[in-house]
């Protein structure tokens, strides 16, 4: 059992992380989580609303076996707010995991690298397993690894855009340089893109919209579960070298023409 995803002393068999936003119902979300075989799911914090108590996901999620919660810091505009959100999330989840996300501009939701770094420094000190959502910037990724983040999560494309691995070249550099798991977070639309991420050497992918907004989320969750496994297996198997020109796979000796 060598191929496991580890964060500190916490070990997961699944390399697919699932976000719980945008699902049409709690039932669909729960069934998608089950079909995905994920062991780590993200949740967000929201003000309690007396008129909308069905918003509360905690009860249904707690009933799932083998699932760890990773509260995110969504809504935080700066490091200070993100730290506060992380502390609230931990108080509720009793989980050391935090998905650190600080994206103050609602138009593109791109992460603020400076505030993210500042928050990460403090959260690592406070014994969180910090998984920061970041631009696909190899220098920032290395700096976050150096201060003790448990992983780095570069974006493939903006959140919810479904534009795939637009940052592939930078993600490859991050993978090459990283000692902590690299997890593609945001942008992925199709299972083939998840598989490609895994083939590149990502340790996991985090998927939300691609499942929640699919026509059949539960089926799509299973498709991602299989593609992540296939992509990881391919990475371990080692892809063949690619060349500029053809390399024959059948013998080319011309025994047929000798009868002309």
């Amino acid at each position, binding site marked *: 059992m060598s191929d496991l995803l580890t964060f500190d002393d916490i070990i997961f068999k699944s390399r697919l992380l699932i976000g719980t*936003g945008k699902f049409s119902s709690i039932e669909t979300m729960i069934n998608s989580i089950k079909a995905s075989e994920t062991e780590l799911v*993200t949740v967000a*914090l929201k*003000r309690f609303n007396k008129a909308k108590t069905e918003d509360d*996901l*905690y009860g249904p999620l707690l009933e799932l076996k083998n699932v760890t919660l990773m*509260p*995110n810091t*969504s809504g935080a505009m700066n490091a200070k707010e993100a730290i506060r959100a992380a502390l609230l999330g931990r*108080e509720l989840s009793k989980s050391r995991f935090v998905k650190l996300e600080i994206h103050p501009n609602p138009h593109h939701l791109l992460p603020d690298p400076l505030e993210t770094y500042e928050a990460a420094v403090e959260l690592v000190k406070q014994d969180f397993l910090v998984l920061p959502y970041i631009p696909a910037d190899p220098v920032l990724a290395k700096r976050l690894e150096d201060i003790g983040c448990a992983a780095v999560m570069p974006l493939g494309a903006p959140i919810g855009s479904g534009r795939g691995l637009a940052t592939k070249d930078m993600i490859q550099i991050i993978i090459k340089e990283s000692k902590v798991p690299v997890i593609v977070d945001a942008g992925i639309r199709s299972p083939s893109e998840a598989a490609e991420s895994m083939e590149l050497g990502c340790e996991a992918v985090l998927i939300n919209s691609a499942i929640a907004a699919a026509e059949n989320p539960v089926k799509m969750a299973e498709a991602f579960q299989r593609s992540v496994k296939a992509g990881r297996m391919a990475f371990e198997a080692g892809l063949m070298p690619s060349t500029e020109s053809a390399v024959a796979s059948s013998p080319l000796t011309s025994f047929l023409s000798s009868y002309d």
Partner: protein
Amino acid sequence: MKIILNGDTHSHEGNQSINSLLDELKVNKNHTAVMINGNVVPKENWNDQIINENDEVEVLVFVGGG
């Protein structure tokens, strides 16, 4: 007395604990986190910590998020 509850003005009887506010709101306490004036209040303090006039109280739950 007046407090700010989740961003809105809320009248609340004086000298009350966080627990009594949560009872009034009928929230599931096991699914709730509380922050007062920007500080997270651990569950073990909910019985003892009193809410004061003009306190900004946030009562939060988990919802779907990526």
